[in-house]
């Protein structure tokens, strides 16, 4: 059955996935140096637990979790700690990071470790194991996965939704994971359903990945209730609230978390990271990254050690073309453009996209002509035109009344705006200003 589900509004940017969608995942060699920021996840940064000169093995902790809303950071290769200092972070800021000189002659074999058998574990033990392995949401937001595994008691979860939409242009890492490691995805789902006591699971995959849908269907376990649901190809289909709406037909109430409607969403990459924890015992020290874009000589889907500098990553892909203009961490719709290529790949890095001149946003901005395209694009039915008017004159309170908080900065409005008004940038700045104002009041 090819019935596809979707949501109203949204946009259709060029997919550009054909650059990498058929390329098998390859492993990238270890770079000479790794940079491991202690802040790679939402929540509290990890606390550094090594000092300069320490020798570390692959998989050793370099940062401890600081409380429940935090995860540890592990060394992704054997080597020597050469520095613990501030370093460019892929979000554009600076962050404290552990730098490791990789030992060229180390076998890069992790210390022998116990692989916990998932069936005998209680929920708490699974949560602990997942936290210890440093697993975070690999879809980009990097929310600690173990926190999601322990939902509040008054909100029972009845459906686990696996996000395989991958609606950002260019990115194919989740796609290749589903095609090449469908068993691992299903194993991760099995562990999660066991740990959370959930009976039902739906994997949402955009229809433009028929091979992924086919691979998942071929390998679906018979003894648990897992459905693969093809979704309309539309941005932002992979946004949590849009996906939940597509799968269950329910709108997550404004300002509430998905658990309030009894569902929990995990990214395909996160699920397979959990599977790896219970298959090999290895923590999250590498991830699959799509390196793509017309500004790159050799696009690829790579297994990249966390901490690999972008410069090394791009060099491994034969470097950028002469026309390359902008390097983006993540996809072109929500990703972060970077000026400093010394910033490393971190756990939440879904991809690196190099745009050429002419593909980037042109500079000319015209006044809003009230064409209404942003209203038809906004997946949460806001009025971006009106919000933009308020943002320009800093009327943040009015924006709050117009549900600015429901804006997830997906960029659909700015993408369609014929006047090239940087709407999502205005909204991001307004959200920050509003938070500051509210913090000042309380």
């Amino acid at each position, binding site marked *: 059955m090819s019935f596809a589900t979707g949501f109203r509004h949204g946009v259709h940017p060029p997919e550009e996935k054909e650059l990498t969608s058929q390329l098998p995942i390859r492993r990238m060699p270890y770079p000479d140096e790794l940079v491991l920021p202690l802040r790679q996840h939402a929540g509290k940064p990890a606390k550094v637990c090594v000092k300069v000169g320490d020798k570390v093995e692959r998989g050793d902790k370099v940062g401890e979790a600081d409380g429940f809303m935090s995860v540890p950071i592990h060394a992704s290769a054997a080597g020597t700690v050469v520095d613990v200092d501030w370093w460019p972070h892929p979000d554009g800021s600076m962050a404290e990071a552990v730098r490791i000189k990789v030992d060229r002659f180390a076998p890069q074999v992790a210390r022998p470790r116990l692989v916990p058998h998932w069936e005998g574990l209680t929920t708490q033990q699974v949560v602990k194991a997942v936290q210890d392995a440093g697993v975070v949401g690999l879809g980009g937001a990097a929310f600690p996965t173990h926190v999601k595994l322990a939902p509040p008691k008054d909100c029972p979860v009845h459906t686990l939704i696996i996000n395989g939409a991958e609606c950002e242009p260019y990115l194919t890492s989740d796609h290749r994971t589903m095609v090449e490691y469908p068993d691992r995805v299903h194993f991760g789902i099995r562990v999660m359903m066991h740990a959370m006591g959930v009976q039902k699971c739906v994997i949402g995959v955009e229809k433009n990945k028929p091979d992924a849908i086919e691979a998942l269907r071929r390998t679906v376990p018979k003894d648990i209730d897992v459905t693969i649901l093809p979704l309309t190809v539309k941005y932002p289909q992979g946004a949590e609230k849009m996906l939940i709406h597509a799968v269950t037909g329910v*709108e997550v109430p404004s300002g509430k978390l998905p658990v309030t409607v009894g569902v929990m969403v995990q990214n395909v990459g996160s699920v397979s990271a959990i599977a790896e924890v219970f298959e090999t015992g290895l923590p999250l020290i590498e991830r699959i990254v799509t390196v793509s874009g017309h500004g790159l000589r050799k696009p690829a889907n790579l297994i990249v050690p966390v901490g690999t500098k972008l410069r090394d990553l791009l060099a491994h892909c034969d470097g950028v073309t002469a026309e390359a203009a*902008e390097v983006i961490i993540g996809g072109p719709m929500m990703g972060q453009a970077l000026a400093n290529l010394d910033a490393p790949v971190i756990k939440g890095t879904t991809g690196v996209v190099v745009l050429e001149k002419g593909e980037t946003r042109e500079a000319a901005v015209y006044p809003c002509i*009230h064409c209404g395209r942003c*209203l038809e694009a906004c997946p*949460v039915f*806001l009025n971006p035109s009106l919000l933009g008017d308020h943002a320009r004159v800093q009327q943040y309170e009015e924006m709050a009344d117009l549900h600015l908080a429901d804006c997830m900065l997906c960029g659909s409005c700015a993408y369609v705006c*014929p006047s*090239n008004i*940087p709407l999502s940038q205005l909204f991001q700045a307004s959200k920050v200003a509003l938070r500051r104002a509210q913090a000042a009041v309380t």
Partner: protein
Amino acid sequence: MTADKLIVTASPHIRSLDSTPRIMWHVVASLVPVVLSAAWFFGVSALLQIATAVAVALLTERSTGKGGAIADGSATITGLLLGLSLPAGFPLWMTALGAAFAIVFGKQVWGGLGQNVFNPALVGRAFLQAAFPVAITTWPSAGGGFFTLHGDLFAMPLTHPLPDAVTSATPLGLLKFEGKGTPLTDLVIGSTGGSLGETAALVILAGGIYLAWRGYLNWRIPVSVLVTVMALSATIHFVDATKPDALFMLFSGGLMLGAVYMATDMVTSPITNLGRWVFGAGIGILVVVIRVWGGLPEGVMYAILFMNALTPFINRATQPRVFGTRLVSAT
């Protein structure tokens, strides 16, 4: 490669191909056939009229707007629409005055493109209607040679314009003041008296369909206007057969030009789709009311201007429901 050469912008880093100038110039391009059909019926007078309006609109925009503002195409549209809404023999100095007025008081005093409440071309025309009520209702007949100069195109300011030797009334005027009908085929083809752009309903409709297909015009407004006019006038005609029927109403006067090109001005029409239906219906009702019961034979201009004024209120009343503010049961 060095890091210095990279540009850094906020997300999203890509954008759709459409731009505001592109939309505007497409509208301009779709008006070219309308201009040509005006030239077919009224000869070189039509071209002089439209060229004057466009040239003065551009000059005014140039001298009052920000640098490069004429490149966005909006002033060209204002000039074209104003020119098309005038009779062929209208003195050119009045046209020039109207075009300047349209840009300055229709747009620039509000803050330029995107800020004005009223359609600039209609502001210009309303000004001319108030200032020169006789000249603007002197309709030369279509026909004559191509190089026939209709009316008193080159009258000097403040002189008394010469009455045109050959004039004719518009179909709406004929009906209202003389009780005479006009064959529907003449209306559809456009071989009747009237403003330059009043006479080519089918060409205008084709341009509108093209723009709607390209997504440069919101189809809801013209559909709403035309359906309302048809439904309402059919009802009135059914009750009182002396009143004009639906097809006459549809193809006479400036309704097509107004519904397709003026009411759909994005800046001055509602931004929500529901609001666009309301806006169009409001125009339709006002057009019928003015034409059937009002003192004027034609009411498209005032209907649109009136609804322009209501646009902010329509917008406010038709805000979309934000996602997650009402629970929808699972299907």
